[in-house]
């Protein structure tokens, strides 16, 4: 009669457990030993059949015999297998003694596979597992939009520039930068307070440099000349000039070629200064190569 069952279900008519794919047929029956839809592995078409199934980490051997074919409730007999792999194999052997080779072999194979995946499960649960947190689409969209708007409202470049200028004003950078106007004001203040520090005088220099440059160009004088003139104008001590030069050198080397050059290129040449006490523009210039 199992042959009849197979003829009907397996081959010709409809079997609800059967899944056909392009290359193979699968059997969805939970008691199926191999998972394929074959004459020898169909649990419906074989009156003597055995499977291994696992429940909550323990493996059981299920057996079906012809004698119980009339009693569906008692059809499948269940045997708990030992946790020890070898012992369990022996148990399978002893329960399925005198059974066809195919079923015995496939049972053992299935049991091996099951134990292997159980071991993997146990190993994985010990490691850290990624917790998957579902994203809520509406919320994600809302957050993204808010971020864009916050970015626009932040006006980052302006804020950073403002902050940097603030820091410059508050002198956190110290003596690295010397800027004309700011320094000129400071110089005025300090002159009023009658405590002339050297750095101010240098900055004064720069200021006058800028002015003088425009002025003197009309006279067609040489660049280096009015460099001298400027120094003659305001500085009163040579130390100041030296310091000024070193300052300028420092700012030059630091600028890495990115500073727009402050006026014409300054060439450092050794020269001797002659002091003049007049405030007006001196007509004579002296230079020593």
């Amino acid at each position, binding site marked *: 009669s199992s042959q009849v069952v197979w003829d009907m279900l397996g081959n010709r008519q409809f079997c609800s457990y059967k899944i056909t794919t392009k290359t193979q047929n699968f059997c969805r029956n939970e008691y199926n030993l191999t998972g394929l839809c074959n004459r020898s592995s169909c649990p419906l078409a074989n009156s003597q059949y055995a499977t291994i199934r696992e429940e909550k980490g323990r493996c059981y051997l299920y057996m079906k015999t012809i004698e119980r074919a009339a009693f569906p409730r008692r059809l499948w007999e269940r045997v708990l297998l030992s946790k020890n792999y070898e012992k369990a194999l022996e148990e399978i052997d002893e329960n399925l003694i005198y059974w066809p080779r195919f079923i015995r072999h496939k049972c053992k194979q299935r049991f091996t596979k099951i134990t292997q995946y159980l071991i993997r499960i146990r190993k994985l649960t010990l490691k850290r597992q990624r917790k998957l947190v579902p994203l809520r689409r509406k919320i994600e969209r809302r957050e993204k939009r808010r971020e864009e708007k916050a*970015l626009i*409202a932040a006006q980052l470049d302006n804020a950073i520039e403002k902050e*940097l200028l603030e820091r410059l004003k508050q002198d956190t950078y110290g003596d690295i930068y010397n800027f004309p106007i700011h320094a000129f004001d400071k110089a005025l203040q300090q002159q009023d307070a009658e405590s002339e520090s050297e750095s101010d005088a240098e900055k004064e220099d720069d200021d006058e440099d800028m002015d003088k440059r425009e002025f003197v160009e009309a006279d067609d004088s040489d660049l280096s000349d009015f460099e001298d003139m400027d120094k003659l104008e305001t500085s009163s001590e040579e130390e100041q000039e030296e310091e000024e030069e070193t300052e300028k050198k420092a700012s030059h080397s630091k600028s890495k070629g990115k*500073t727009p050059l402050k006026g014409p290129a300054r060439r450092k040449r050794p020269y001797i200064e002659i002091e003049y006490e007049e405030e007006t523009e001196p007509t004579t210039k002296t230079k020593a190569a």
Partner: protein
Amino acid sequence: GSAAEDGGPPAPERVLFPPTFSVSEIKNKQRRHFMFLRWKQQQRKEKLAARKKRRKEREALGDKAPPKAIPKTIENQRVYDETTVDPNDEEVAFDEATDEFAPYFNRQTVPKILITTSDRPRGRTVRFCEQLSTVIPNSHVYYRRGLALKRIIPQCIARDFTDLIVINEDRKIPNGLVLSHLPDGPTAHFRMSSVRLRKEIKRKGKEPTEHVPEVILNNFTTRLGHSVGRMFASLFPHDPQFIGRQVATFHNQRDYIFFRFHRYIFKSEKKVGIQELGPRFTLKLRSLQKGTFDSKFGEYEWIHKRREMDTSRRKFHL
């Protein structure tokens, strides 16, 4: 008397208007759309006319004109947070002198950062980690080979690391950042978004150099914001090298922290030019934990609870 009231229809109190229709009552969609457009145009015209009138009035009044109305922005309308830090607050100052960052701010410790990722990082995350380590001085990138964070942390402490950064990755893009101050310091968990690597930034400059950058922290007003800001500040060594002219900015706006890395140059006394180098990303704080990273038994100082905290559009926590 009532006669002088309306002047038009002789009805006692109610004023009779001709029956107007509202645009939304037209059933035909095309016609409704057309009428709506017409109504919109009319509104715009009226608004323009009103604005012109106002401007004329202002010009006419000259100096006596009332001051211009300040437009309402979200920052203006922000719900006042009672934990806003007052700069002169003594309690806050005392707290900050005794919290976990005190040794850093007293210059007793030099920051040493360990940057790592989650398991099996993909190329983008790896490159981002490298770039981040060039931005933060004295930082090292280590490949995480399936190690548990709880076991890494004692090792890090033993090797004198002060901070641990873990960049979490999902589907090949970094999307989370865990910043942990090591000798028993607070742990902050951020969600990271819009990560741009150096090559994706337009008009960028050359590589960031080895100089210690300056740090700018903007807009961290509340207590929570203050502690987060100090966490960021403690990543960088205390004395920036101004020669390098590099600045790292953490700008908080509406609870989003934007990170940028620039090189600046002072063109004149009133003008500064900045050029962006280095990666950029946005962070949003998700939780702040008191101790080091411990998801199960940690004591959370602050968790972002969406249902309670996101109810108002004008309320921000940082």
